[in-house]
Each structure stands twice: as C-alpha cells, then as structure tokens.
C-alpha cells in the first residue's frame, strides 16, 4: 500500500516537474526570441488567446494575447511573462513541445489549439526529413520600416564598398546611405540611393553582388537602429583612389579607416 502511494506520488511529482520546468526562469518580454517564446505562443494558442503564427518571436500579437490572458486570469496586466504568469499559464494549458519543434523543422504551417487532435492542425504534407536541424524560430525581429531584404541589399552595398574596413567604418558607410535617404538631394528609396549611377564604385564594378558576411549585416542593423559613426555624412571617399576633384572640396567631418567622410 505504502509502496503504491509513493510510486503514485513519484509519478505525480515527475509529471508536475516536467510541466513546471517547461519555461526557463527568465522573464519573457516583447522583442525576445527563442524557445520560451515558442512555448508562450503555443500555450496561449492552446487556450485560444493567440491566433497568430507560432514563430518564436515575441511581437505585438503575442503581446496583446498575453495581456488579454493576464486580464482574464486576474493577474497584473503588464505584458511580461514573469513567474506568476508562467505558473498560471502552465496550469491551464498544455504544450506539445516535440510536435511544435517537429513542425517548425519540417517547415509546415501548423496550429496548437486545445481540444483538437494535433494531426488535424498541420497544413502542408511536408513530411520530408528535416533539412535544417538548428532552426529555432521561423521569423526575425526587423527594425520598423525595413524588411530583411532591405537589410540584405544594404549589406551587399556595405560589403562591396567597405569589407576591408574596421567595423565602425562599415557602420559609417551604411549610415551614409541612410543619411542620403533622408537628404533632399538624393533619391528617397534604398534602391534609388544605392543604384544612383556613379554613386558607389561597388555598384559600377559589380562587387555589390558578392555575398555579404555577418559583419556587414550587423553593421547595417546598427546603422538602421540609430548609430551613425560618420557624424551625419552624406559623402565619403578613399583619398588614395579618388579621381574626382570636386569630392575634395566637400567639408570633411572625420576619417575612419581608409575613408574620409564629408558633408
């Protein structure tokens, strides 16, 4: 009798432990990315608060879903998934982790609603074995007003123009392109600025089509997010190779690496 009770308790304990340890102990905030966000979205969807994609990125729709959940369950409505919110959520919902991760790896579109067999919630019969094993999320944070392709195009330009430069030199080149975007003397789209005839040597000689590395992409993100090491420059040139006399007449702001940045 006693043995049975202990094993009963043990089973219960293991089950509970499995559930409680689901989330890591971080406070999940808007903008976060990763496994905890996947679980948060899946659990919120399980009880019908979240209708968006389970993509592992804590965006606005996840934020509102979480706040509605907090409101319904009498928790402080702050849009943060802290200790009490997570505990409550774990209590009232289920999370089929292996199902969610499997679908993400296979690239299927799926949902995770409660009260409906999981097999009916997968769209697209992409049953091929997963090609990518490291995929955690199916989406990315992007700065407002810029798409991943915009970032890629900018990274191409930065890599083609300044791949041998120090990191801040690369950020500065990206910042110059963005400064031109705002400036009345230049076209007002990213492509317009980059492909303006004669504006960038990397465009003229085709080096813009080299595949950019991670550093160039990081530099572009920093520039978009508001870092401008060029000091508001709209031109730059390499004094060793500049053939045009006019560029020397521009008021110079500073030098970074091989480039002189000017107004």
């Amino acid at each position, binding site marked *: 009798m006693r043995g049975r009770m202990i094993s009963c308790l043990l089973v219960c304990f293991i089950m509970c432990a499995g559930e409680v340890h689901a989330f890591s102990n971080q406070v999940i905030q808007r903008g976060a990315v990763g496994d905890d966000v996947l679980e948060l979205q899946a659990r919120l969807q399980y009880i019908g608060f979240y209708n968006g994609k389970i993509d592992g990125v804590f965006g606005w729709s996840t934020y509102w879903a979480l706040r509605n959940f907090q409101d319904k369950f009498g928790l402080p409505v702050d849009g943060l998934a802290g200790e009490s919110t997570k505990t409550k959520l774990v209590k009232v919902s289920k999370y089929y982790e292996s199902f969610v991760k499997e679908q993400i790896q296979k690239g299927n579109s799926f949902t995770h609603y409660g009260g409906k067999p999981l097999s009916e919630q997968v769209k697209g019969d992409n049953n091929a074995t997963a090609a990518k094993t490291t995929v955690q999320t199916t989406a990315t944070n992007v700065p407002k007003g810029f798409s991943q392709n915009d970032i890629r195009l900018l990274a191409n330009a930065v890599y083609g123009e300044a791949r041998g430069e120090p990191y801040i030199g690369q*950020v500065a080149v990206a910042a110059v392109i963005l400064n031109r975007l705002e400036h009345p003397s230049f076209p007002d789209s990213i492509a317009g600025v980059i492909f303006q005839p004669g504006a960038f040597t990397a465009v003229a000689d085709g080096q813009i089509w080299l595949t950019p590395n991670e550093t160039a992409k990081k530099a572009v993100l920093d520039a978009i997010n508001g*870092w401008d090491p060029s000091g508001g420059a709209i031109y730059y040139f390499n004094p060793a190779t500049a053939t045009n006399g006019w560029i020397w007449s521009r008021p110079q702001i500073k030098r970074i690496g091989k480039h002189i940045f000017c107004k």
Partner: protein
Amino acid sequence: MVRVLLIAFLSLGVVSTAYWGYREHQEKNAILVHAENNYQRAFHDLTYKIDMLHDQIGTTLAMNSRTSLSPALAEVWRIAAEAHSDVGQLPLSLLPFNKTQQFLAQIGAFSYRTAVRDLDKQPLTKEEYETLQALYQKAANIQNELRNVQHLVLKNHLRWMDVELALATNNRPSDNTIIDGFKAVENDVQSFSEGTNFAPTFTTITNREKGFIRAQGKRISENEAKQIAKSFLGLKGTETIKVVRSGKGADERFYSVTVFDPKTKTEAYMDITEKGGYPIWVMDNRPVKKQAISVYDASVKGQQFLKKHRFTNFELYDSSQYDNIAVLTFVANEKGVRIYPEAIKMKVALDDGTIVGFSARDYLASPPLSTIPKPTISLAEARKKLNPNVRVMEERQAVITNDLNQEVLCYEFLGTLGDDTYQIFINAQTGMEEKVDKMQSVERNYE
C-alpha cells in the same frame, strides 16, 4: 596533304575567332545602347516633368478657390517627386547638382504641406504666395536651361555614356555640353536658394541638420573628453585611449574616442560633443557569447545605466533581440507624458549584460521643451476621433514631431485592427489625427 589540312584548320580557326569577336562586339554594343537608352529616358522624362511643373505652379498661382488649390498643389508635389526621382537615375552624382535636387525636394515639401493643410481655415499667407511666385520664376529658368541642353543633345546626338566617362575620369572637366548645361542650371538655382527668403513653414527641411541643440556649455578639451569616456564606459585604466577632433565639416565639433583594451584585444568607440561634453554614441564591437540573460534583464540593466548617468525619467519603449544582443529604445517621460523625440537607444549584450552600444543622437537633436501644454480636449473626445473598428488596448499622452516638424501634444492610442497593431496619435489641442503607424516588428524568414 598535311599542309592543306593545316591551312583548312587554321582558316577555320580564324573564321570562328572573327565570328566570336563580332558577336562579342555586337553584345557589347547592345548593352551600351541599352544603358544609353535608360539615361536618355530619364533625361527626357526630367525635362518633360520640369515643363509640367512650371505649368502646374503657374496654374496654382491663378487659382483662387480653395477647392481647386489643394488638388493642384498635390499635383505639384507629385510632379516634383517624379522629377526628383528622374534626376536620381542620371549619372550626375559626381557633378555638383545637389542644389537643383534640393530645389525639387523643397518644392515637393512646400506643396505637400500646403496641399494637406485646411486652406479654408489657414489660407495661403502673403509670404507663401510670394514663395510660390518665386518658385514659378525659378522653374521657368530651369525649364529654359534644360530645354537648351535637350535641344543640343538631340541635334548633336550627344551620349550620356560620354558624360559618365568624362565625370569618372575627370580629364576634361568642362568641355562636355551636357555637363556645362547642368552646371548652368545648378548655378541658377544656387543664386535663388541663397537669395530667397522662404516662408516660415518652409525652413523646417533644413532644421534636422541643425545638429545637437541640447549640447550646450563650455567647450571641452581632448583630455576632458578622455576623462568623460573613462567614466562613461567604466574603464579600468589599463586601456589605450586615442582622441581625434572632428573636421570642419561637422555641424558641431565633436571628439572621436577609440579605446583599445589589451586584455580582450577589442576596440570600443565613442563620440563626444565638444560643447558640454555630451556622449553622442558608443559602440563596442566585442564578440558576444551565448545568451545567458533575458531581454527583460537587459532592459533593467539599460535602465540602471541611464539612471547612473543622470538620464532620469526615461522609460523603456521598445525592445528587440537580434542574435545575442538586445536593442532597446528608451524615451523620456515627463509627468506621465511620453516625449518621443527624446529617444535614447542602447544595445545590451545578452551574455553578461554589459552595455555594448549607446546612442543619444535623437535626444541631443531634439529641442528641450519649455513646458508641456495642457490638453484642450479630453481623452474620451479624442477616442471618438478614432476609426471605430480599431480596438484600443493602451492609451496615454505623448509629445511627437508631426509632418510639419512641430512638437505637438497628442493622445496616443495603441490598438488592434484584425491581426495588426496600430499606433495612432490624436492632437490633444485640435483633435486632428496627426499620425497613424502600423507597428510591424516581426518578419517571417524566407529561408
């Protein structure tokens, strides 16, 4: 026999080489013609747009009724924008042609602002009318010059590819008809923009270039800049610090500090204003290890850092994780009113929670508000101005910079419509919808 075969073989070689060369030549020519045609299209399109622009401004001058003036000004705005885009497609970036481009952008900004204004309540002022007349005059001059260039281009079959070449090599700077023509246009516009006093609503475009209004106080020395960097970055003293003063091209002089840490072999960079010694931005490009703390912890660290450096009253507005770095945006909050122009950005490494980036550019460039006005309409009244389909989730008071570059007090609403989230600003004085933004921060991966 062998000789005959050899001759046949060699001549076949010559013939096929010739054929190959001919094909290459043809292909090259086809590409040249194609590129040239693109330039010609942009150029002739530009002259046509300037014609239209001139005519359209002329029409607006003759108009009296407000109902026809607004659409006509909107038309001016559209044509100016198109002409601006045409200029951007010509190989002129090495030619000083920016005054003309600026002129087109300014016509656009002017006509847009007057077109969207309620001209019944705020009719064109005398100055604005004079500006319009001056713009008309100037458009006529540009039109004439460009017409002249166009005539010469057509008559003498001038090629834009030659312009590109001449500008790139800079061999013969001033014997190209097209270049001369465009230089004439530029000079013309230059004398205009220097001599004309634009109406007050018109000056704002250059406002943003004014630099760091907040950075006031006594000028600091290089040594003082070093000290500021030391305390701001929390340096231990073992680092090598290099300070360089900016050139005369900067709106406001600043110092660029480079800090090399021999222990980690990484560099951190920082710019500090010369006046008052305000940090403009900091960037530390050290490699960030595996994520150990959450975005939430990072924002707490960021908040503490701001407090420590006497940026009080700042609250977190936005946070995003990129790989192992959290990018945070803080905005000032004065007595419950968010001041959006006063924004500070930070990057926090998610391995150990240290600050790897700081940018106060927006904050330093925003003019300090003397007083925040009291709203004249109530929150409930403002809410009535919203699209009834928007489900309001959050509301507060906020100061934003509107389209006319003025700081205005608004009621801010965050709401959802369908699956999207919108940020809507209703002017707390006039009830006007100042700004509606769709909030998008997440994009699916295409890989």
